[in-house]
Structures are given as C-alpha cells and as structure tokens.
C-alpha cells in the first residue's frame, strides 16, 4: 500500500475467546465472545461497529456473525486465503476506512477444529474431484498442509544441509515462551531430543514439528488513527503492509519452493513504513511448521538464505535468546485454531502495549507480523508501531 496510508489506522482492541479444548461452544459463539471482549478492550460498543470482517469455516461468515451480534454493518469482507486471512482483513479495513466506507472495523476468527475432529488425520476439507487439486493432487494421498511443508523441508535440507535438530530448535523455543504465557495450551517442558524422537508424519517432519490443533477464536478492532486517539488503549498503528498471492494447492508453476514471495511483502511493507529490519523490536511469524519459521526468517531477510539453521541454533528464538520471536508460544505451543494470522497480530499488539508480563520484551516499539496462507500460496507482512 502507498506510504501516505502509513499510520492512517490503528488496532484499538484485541482479544482471544476461550482457547484450547472448548467442547461446549460453536465457532460462531467463540467469535462473538472474542468480538465483545475486543470491543470492551477498545472502549467501544457493538453499536459503534460499521464493518465486519469475519472468517471461519462457515459460509457467509460476515452475515452470520452480524446477525448473531445484532449489528447491521455498512461494509463486510470475508476473504478467505487461509491462515493469513485476518492480517489481510486489517489491510482491507485500512483501505475501506481510507475510502470512507466505514469507521469501526470488527475482525473476527473462530474454530472448533479440535472438538469437532475436523483436522483428524492431517486432512483439510478437500476440493471437488473436477478441480485442479481434485484431479492432480488428491488421488496421490498427499497430506495437506503438512505434506507440502515436508517437501519444503526436504528441499531446504538438500540445498543447505539443514538438519532436523535445527527444526527442533524452533519447537523448543516456542515451548519455552509458552511456559511464560498462562493462556498457552502446551506448557510442559520439552527438549530437542524429545522433538526429534516424536513420530514421523511426513518425512522429514515429525509430529512435534507441527502446530497444535486447538479450538479458539480471536478479534481485533481497527479504527482510523484520529478515532483511536480518544479510545481506552494506547493505539497500535499500522505502519506498513503488503501481500502477494501465487497459487492454490497445485503449485506446479511456483519455480522455487524456497522463494515464495515473502521477500517482496517485507520490502514493500518496510518501504511503506519508512523503517528497516534493524529497527524491528518484535517479530511474530506464523509457525505452522518448524520449517516455516526458518523459511520465513530467511525470506524476510533476517538471516541470509540457507543460514536459517545456524541462525536459530542454541535457543536463539527463545526467551533471552539472540533473536526472540513468537513470544506467545506460537502455533506450536500456545494454540492453533486453524488459522493463526489473528493470533500473530494479537501478540504483537500486546507486546507493543507492554502487557506481556513475564514474556514482555524489554524494548517493544516496532513489530513485524508475517503469515502465509494455504501452502506457501500467499503471504503478507505487516509492520505495527506505537
């Protein structure tokens, strides 16, 4: 987006719903719970909301949520591009606010994938047998998304000599952060050896290279910078944002599976924000699989291509490490209700507000959020600041 929009909107409220195993609530109810908490966080009411960006596995999610909350928004957008969708919605809200189409945007997500068993066997609801995916992928027994990221890990190991121990470092760092987060789902201690001894799911990835499967929801409230100044919390401004989109589930024409469009989003977001990598204090990267963190760190330019393994060694990403990231415990240990983009942003906002208690980073003025969607299909990078 153009740099004149930098700092034009702020995230004024954030909240999670109940997280973990929540058998008694629907995805809609989790979204509604998070929505009301996020509005309370911002010091706003449901009646102030005039735009809804809802995203679940349900069809027509924005209408469903609006009806449930008894609001009649002037603008909605339920674009679903996988895990990064809610970060995309922040940018859509930004454009809509700039265009005068709305003033108070409510962004929500909710899922009961743990309680309803929809992620069992690592298979996500499939496309029809006449689609490209149905014809050229599904007959071959490919797991999705883990099979795709297993192939990425295989490529990374082949090209750069990355080891499974390097990947395990990412999982252990996430768990050490989760131990400092009372809301995290998995907080018991773990070790490199334990991660490396977990069962292989799709080689070279093992069970503990994979994010959790939990229930949960989240919400954010995005308003104009002007409006944010009068609200309850310290505004967290959107300084820069960019997105790229490449493929669906059939990436036969994505030339290099280790160069997936992340770099372009980072460069554009930094340009829009007028800051550089060295200025960033807080880094939150969607950790669907351990390899994804290595890949994103390299493509974002925080370390040279191929050096991700050495970069994350010796607990570098954990509390007190050389490059602390994903301070909530991430999708690997805090929780993963299916689409983690929402929670990447929530943790960045809390760090920038200084609300993170034991896991608070000492300096937190500029944050970078990154998430992909589907199977390295699309990417977004967002830079937030106070």
């Amino acid at each position: 987006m153009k740099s004149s929009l930098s700092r034009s909107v702020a995230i004024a409220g954030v909240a999670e719903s109940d997280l973990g195993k929540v058998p008694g609530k629907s995805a809609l109810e989790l979204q509604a719970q998070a929505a009301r908490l996020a509005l309370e966080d911002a010091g706003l009411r449901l009646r102030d909301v005039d735009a809804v960006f809802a995203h679940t596995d349900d069809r027509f999610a924005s209408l469903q949520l609006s009806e449930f909350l008894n609001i009649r928004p002037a603008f909605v957008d339920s674009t679903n591009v996988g895990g990064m969708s809610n970060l995309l919605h922040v940018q859509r809200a930004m454009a809509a606010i700039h265009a005068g189409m709305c003033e108070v945007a409510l962004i929500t997500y909710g899922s009961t994938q743990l309680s309803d068993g929809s992620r069992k066997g690592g298979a996500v609801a499939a496309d029809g047998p006449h689609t490209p995916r149905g014809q050229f992928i599904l007959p071959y027994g490919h797991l999705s998304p883990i099979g795709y990221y297993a192939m990425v890990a295989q490529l990374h190991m082949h090209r750069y000599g990355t080891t499974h121990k390097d990947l395990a470092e990412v999982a252990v760092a996430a768990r050490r952060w989760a131990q400092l987060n009372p809301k995290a789902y998995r907080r018991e201690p773990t070790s490199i050896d334990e991660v490396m001894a977990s069962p292989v799911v799709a080689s070279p990835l093992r069970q503990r290279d994979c994010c959790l499967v939990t229930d949960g929801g989240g919400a954010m409230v995005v308003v104009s910078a002007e409006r944010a100044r009068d609200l309850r919390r310290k505004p967290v401004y959107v300084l820069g944002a960019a997105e790229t989109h490449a493929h669906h589930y059939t990436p036969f024409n994505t030339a290099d599976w280790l160069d997936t469009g992340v770099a372009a989003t980072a460069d554009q977001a930094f340009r829009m924000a007028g800051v550089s990598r060295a200025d960033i204090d807080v880094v939150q990267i969607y950790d669907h699989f351990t390899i994804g963190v290595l890949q994103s760190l390299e493509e974002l330019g925080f370390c040279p291509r191929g050096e991700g393994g050495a970069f994350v060694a010796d607990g570098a990403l954990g509390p007190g490490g050389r490059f602390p990231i994903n301070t909530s415990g991430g999708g690997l240990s805090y929780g993963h209700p299916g689409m983690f983009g929402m929670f990447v942003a929530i943790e960045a906002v809390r760090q920038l507000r200084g609300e993170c208690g034991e896991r608070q980073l000492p300096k937190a003025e500029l944050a970078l959020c990154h998430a992909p969607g589907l199977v390295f299909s699309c990417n977004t990078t967002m830079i937030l600041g106070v």
Partner: protein
Amino acid sequence: MSEAPARPLPQPTDLTRPYWQAAAEGELHMQHCGACGRWQFYPRPFCIHCEAEALQWRAVSGLGRIYTYTVNHRAPNAFMKARLPYVVAIVELDEGPRLMANIQGEGALDAAIGKRVKVLFEPVSDELALPQFALLE
C-alpha cells in the same frame, strides 16, 4: 463386511480429458504451445507463458527427476492408509513441467531429490489410470 475404501479419483472435464485419455492408453501427454514453443501443466485453455490459444496435446518423454518429495507415515484417507509408508513426489519432466505422483516400484523408499524417474501408469478404474513414476537407477 464393509466395502474396501475408495480412492479419491479425478473427474475429467472437457479441458483435461485428453490428458486422462492418454494416461488410460499408457501415454503421458501435455499441452505444448505452438506460438512460444513451451510446455505447460496442468491443462488450461490458453498458454500461461504467452497467452496464445494455439495449444496442442503432445506426448512427453515420461522421463524426469525428483524436484522434492516426502515419505508419508500418515495418510489422508483409508485407501492410502493401507499403503503406508509411501512416497509423494513433485517430478520435474525433462520437458520442464512439474507434476505430482507417487514413486512406486522397487526401491521407491530410496527416493531422493535429483534422482531420475520414469513414468508408469496405475489403473484405478475402468476408465482411468494415474500417471506414477519409478526410480531409474
């Protein structure tokens, strides 16, 4: 007694039927652009490189190498569960296009990036056969 679990099968469209018909006859065919001379996969009604519509179905060599792969120890459906462990690979054909396939046959679990492979055809119904690959060395 319950029936044997079904494999997810492709449902050809008018656009993709030449690919599946050739496969059923034991040949791997792909679209070749008469305007720019490049190959493409999967099928489209235009050339993704130059946007021309002058596409012809032609046989490819069926030879290629493994671009990347994974060995599955968990399966997305009951049919594939009975085949565990199995290899899913992205094969890059000598002509350029990539496609997904299982690596089958002797030594399949020795699949590795860069290894040479050759196409074979696995019948999956009365009308359909899936292009699959076997290691050459």
